[in-house]
């Protein structure tokens, strides 16, 4: 319990409890339906994967604005390359493309000494542009046999009545949590975000840590894109638009401090749950879908204030 309260994700736990209570009160029958829950959990898993990658980058005191575009490009690469490479080959190629984008951006930030906000903003536009050029504005249909291929079902199908994405998210979350909290790399990552200068002075290769974080973040975004399109292969060139903002919001709502060094991967997934729940509850309530982004904005600001108060209560100087 003490560990939970001290953890950065605690604010998100309270947020989730509060949100569920309010949604139950105002719209019990609309909210607690199998359909809503299934949609919310499915989309939470996909956004959660993006948010965990984002959380890793934020914990190194950087930010990645390009994840929405990378999510889109990897997903579209999966569909575009499938005829030539087959389903497994297309997945691997899409992930390599995502990793390469992360590597390039990481190099730009570390070797170029540039602010990650600018480098990844450039990445956001560049990658989106590549999607337009590559597809010529419209994405081809995914052939029927590829849709039903075993590998496609493994990413986009259902396992034990739940979307496969849920299991992927849980597995990735478990691995990343172990990596972050129980390995040398994790300790170096937290140290890099906490005080890069101190980490440097202890011989930590902080540049390499940051580049690795950017690569992980891009690969996770790409993987989330593949999960999405393996499930619903019809898409459009705008896929993933504004998703970077949802991912950053989820990570921040989940307790990641932009000052670096503090955050929670579990919190990021809970943050994704909150963001997603608002989307579906607003739809369920019949509000115009354009209200969603406004609500995310409000929730984000409230969460930041709340998390900061919580961190100060725990005695951190933030």
């Amino acid at each position, binding site marked *: 319990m003490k560990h939970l309260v001290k953890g950065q994700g605690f604010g998100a736990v309270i947020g989730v409890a509060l949100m569920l209570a309010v949604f139950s009160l105002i719209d019990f029958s609309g909210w607690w339906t199998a359909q809503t829950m299934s949609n919310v959990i499915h989309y939470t898993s996909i956004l959660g994967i993006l948010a965990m990658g984002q959380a890793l980058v934020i914990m190194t005191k950087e930010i990645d604005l390009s994840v929405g575009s990378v999510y889109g490009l990897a997903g579209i690469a999966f569909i575009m390359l499938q005829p030539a490479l087959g389903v497994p080959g297309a997945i691997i190629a899409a992930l390599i493309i995502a990793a390469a984008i992360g590597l390039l951006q990481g190099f730009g930030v570390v070797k170029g000494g540039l602010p990650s906000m600018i480098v990844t903003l450039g990445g956001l536009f560049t990658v989106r542009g590549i999607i337009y050029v590559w597809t010529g504005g419209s994405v081809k249909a995914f052939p029927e046999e590829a849709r039903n291929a075993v590998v496609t079902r493994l990413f986009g199908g259902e396992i034990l009545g739940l979307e496969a994405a849920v299991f992927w998210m849980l597995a990735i979350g478990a691995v990343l949590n172990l990596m972050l909290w129980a*390995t*040398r790399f994790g*300790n170096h990552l937290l140290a890099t975000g*906490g*005080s890069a200068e101190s980490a*440097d002075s202890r011989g*930590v290769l902080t540049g390499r840590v940051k580049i690795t974080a950017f690569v992980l973040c891009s690969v996770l975004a790409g993987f989330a894109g593949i999960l999405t399109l393996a499930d619903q292969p019809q898409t459009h060139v705008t896929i993933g638009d504004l998703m970077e903002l949802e991912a950053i919001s989820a990570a921040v709502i989940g307790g990641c401090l932009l000052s670096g060094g503090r955050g929670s991967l579990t919190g990021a997934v809970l943050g994704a749950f909150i963001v997603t729940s608002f989307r579906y509850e607003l739809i369920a309530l019949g509000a115009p879908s354009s209200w969603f982004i406004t609500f995310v904005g409000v929730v984000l600001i409230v969460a930041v204030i709340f998390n900061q108060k919580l961190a100060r209560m725990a*005695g951190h100087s933030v």
Partner: protein
Amino acid sequence: MAHPLISVKNLDLYFGAFHALKDVSVDFNAGELVGLVGDNGAGKTTLIRVLCGIHKPTKGEVWFDGTQVKEFHPKLAIDNGIETIQQSVGLCDNLSIARNFYLGREPVRKILGIPFLDFAKMRGESRKVIREFGLRDNVSADDEVERLSGGERQSVKIGRAVEFMNRVVIMDEPTNHLSVREREHVNELAVQLKEQGLLVIYITHDIFQVHKLADRIVIMENGEKVEDARTTDMTADELEEVIRQGGRKVEKRGAA
């Protein structure tokens, strides 16, 4: 002694057009406590940053234990047993004492072939240091460094230097912002390290303080070494006079 542990020969360092170190030559021996004294901007910290691998000299040579140093990187310095204790750098506030203690050389234990952090060892060793170096009783190895006072932070850094069997400990203004008792404690530790056969380089403004501890005093001014004397040969007052005399040249604006 066959050769000094660290030997700096005709070192020059430029930051762009700024000449930070000017033809500095100095030797440091094992088992010696050397006070490195000078005003702000005299080049003390810059010299030290070369020794701990942060800056690469523009010209000149650095020899460590009889071999010439070709590459400069903090990690190489640490691997060679050169530990630097700086005023504001070295501890990450967001990490526990145990995690900070082993930062950069974390012990690992393999579970299913995957190297995981050996938390038991990390906690055990840092708990030992917490006790030995007189941190408050209610401080635990899992507490974040953020909670510690200035003296306790220095104690953790010095404890870390002792623990890893270093050969050189460089202390950059180690007693700044410390209470009187904490200061005495840090100074005792510096002497202890020296008595264990380590080379201790102690950087400070305070010539009177370091004169009591040191075997030798090196005074720097304006990027140059201006004095290098054994404490048995010169009194603190004489040395202070050197610092005054060697004051920075301030160019007066001519009337024309």
